[in-house]
């Protein structure tokens, strides 16, 4: 699985950082998504997919 994040469409709702904190964080100044790693930790594919579904602005993807 490869994870991507697009800060230009991110609206900082924080759902990714709440759902998969080992993969996603938020920047201190803008609150937009910060990708901590491009691939999920072992056994976290499902939780990353859930974060992608929960993102309101389509800023993150996993393929």
């Amino acid at each position, binding site marked *: 699985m490869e994870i991507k994040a697009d800060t230009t469409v991110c*609206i*900082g*709702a*924080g759902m990714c*950082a709440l759902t998969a904190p080992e993969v996603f964080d*938020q920047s*201190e100044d803008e609150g937009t998504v910060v990708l901590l790693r491009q691939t999920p930790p072992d056994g976290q594919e499902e939780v990353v997919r859930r974060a992608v579904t929960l993102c309101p602005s389509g800023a993150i993807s996993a393929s």
Partner: protein
Amino acid sequence: MSDFTLPMTRQRPFDPPNEVAELRQQASMHRMTYADGHVGWLVTGYAEARAVLAHPGFSNRPEKMHAPIPSRLDLVGERRDRGVPRGFFLRTDAPEHTRYRKQLTGQFTVRRMKALESRITEITNACLDDMAAAGGTVDLVQAFALPIPSLVICELLGVPYEDRAQFQEDSKILVNLETKADDVLAALGRVSAYLHGLIQRKRKEPADDLLSGLIESGELDDEELTGVAFLLLVAGHETTANMLGLGTYALLTNPDQLAAMRDDPSVVDNGVEELLRYLTIIHLGPFRLATEDVEISGNLIKEGEMVGVHLPVVNRDPSRFPGGEHLDVTRPAGGHMTFGHGIHQCLGQQLARGEMRIAYPALLRRFPALRLAVTPEEVPMRSDMTIYGVHRLPVTW
């Protein structure tokens, strides 16, 4: 043509109107006649609701919108004759919306909201202490549901302690739609003037709070900052307050669910999501106006047509939440649309989660014998308001 108009009357306090629930069984999108005769749409399906709210072909600006029901004075930017107050960015579109939202998202991150938890706990415990001292029968709305979010917003905005009583008094008038329009306008003026003055004070003496942070970034002028502060006040106050009031009422009438929320800390986070889903206090809208022809699930929404999303029914769509007509704090409730979807999804949702995750269990553990002091039928419901909830919730323990 459509002879369907939006019903607001509920047959049961926790369930959306039967007519809308029945509509969903027929299809996910429906023609609906708005208050001025405009024929637009009403969305009752989960997938369609997500598609509409995420689509860039819809506007949230109020100027050309058609009211879904004959409207009263509405604080959430519905005074179309005056347009959108500057800084009231909920009712703007990209890229104007983007500019404001980017200024604020850094202040509402998951991390920052977690840092507020100890203050939320202190505020909650102070309310519970006052309740315990008062004893007898207490209106949970006045003693618990309203003051907690109000004081948390004061904390966030940096309203000094000595100003909080007046600030709370005026906010209470604003969110209580039993108040006469003249009184609302007067309170509106006082709160705006107060926020404007507060911003000027913060400009001179910055502190560690949201307004000082916004001032420091230098992007917004005082009028915009006043609009932003006012939006945060309204959006963060009435919503969480009604969730705390209505949520407690729902738990009191579902004792097994209450016991789980009280006794099992591992249930609380998901239980809050389930209460958000099951109660869906946003029972009027959100509404959008198509700025181009948009096709959703084979339906052509024409430019200029209104689309309303019926969130309470969407959040019970059986294709997404099987058995969703029941409250079950152990159901996987993530993905509910109570905070909306798309670029306007609630900015303060992580704060709201923090408040509810602390306040519900704190209340239930402090008063394990908490119960209604009236019959369930006697609890007055906010049926005709933008945000659903209870007007009063008399409880004892």
